[in-house]
């Protein structure tokens, strides 16, 4: 029974990963690509390792899978945040449909 639940979570994770990578291809500029890919791929990888945890139960491998889940949830937003800030500072423009940009005033004031 545990194995079936584990395979179910792994399947959900794989589908989320695939949708995130489709978003990486379809969206028009860097920031929207970051949005799509970060959210979907974080949940996808965590889903896969949650499935591994269910499959093995409370053994050494299952606890290591839990450690990976905590680590990915903590670090993936940090790295996406760093990439977004670096992209803005290196001068990547936002796409044409974008509406407002409050961040530009702050950057000009800091200079």
């Amino acid at each position, binding site marked *: 029974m545990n194995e079936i639940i584990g395979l179910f979570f792994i399947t959900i994770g794989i589908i*989320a990963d695939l*949708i995130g990578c*489709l*978003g990486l291809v*379809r*969206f*028009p*500029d860097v*920031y*929207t690509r*970051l*949005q*799509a890919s*970060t*959210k*979907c791929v*974080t*949940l996808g990888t965590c889903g896969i390792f949650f499935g591994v945890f269910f499959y093995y139960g409370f053994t*050494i491998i299952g*606890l*290591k899978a839990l*450690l990976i889940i905590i680590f990915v*949830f*903590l670090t993936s*937003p*940090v790295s*996406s*945040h760093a990439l*977004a*800030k670096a992209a*803005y500072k290196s001068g990547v423009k*936002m*796409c044409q*449909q*974008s*509406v*407002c*940009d*409050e*961040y530009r005033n*702050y950057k000009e004031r800091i200079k």
Partner: protein
Amino acid sequence: MKIRVYRKIFLICLVFLVWIILSGFEIYNVIFGIICSVILILLFGDINIQNEWTFKKPQRYLWFLYYIIIFLYEVIKANIDVAYRILSPNMPIKPGIVKVKTSIKSDAFLTILANSITLTPGTLSVDIDKENGYIYVHWIYVRDVDVEAVTKKIAHKFEKILMKITCK
């Protein structure tokens, strides 16, 4: 004085648990793990303490559990939202960067708030202006530009709980 000792014992147990999970349960691993975790906590144990009395209050851990449940619900909602935007034929996006006001001061809780904003529906935190207390957020479908309304929509539900965890 006493609270500091309790805190260090708790941290030693935590570090030792991670050591055991990563390296397996054998006799030399256990002995070496105890030595290593004691040395680590004695050296670096009190590197990031701001108010050591909040460690003892039990209700903040309950609030933290409640926060995790709310957070997981928001993450699943965010994934369904983003999947809808990716798979629909004409891509309903209207992106922009907006300002969110926050009243949290401590570094660790600002990090938690920014991470939660990144993983919730349609938002991605770009930069933090710590002196004035603003977070700059990239929003995939801008519904409002005004600071107060944006704060109420994006950050209010997390900030309310985080203020209770800090116990001020």
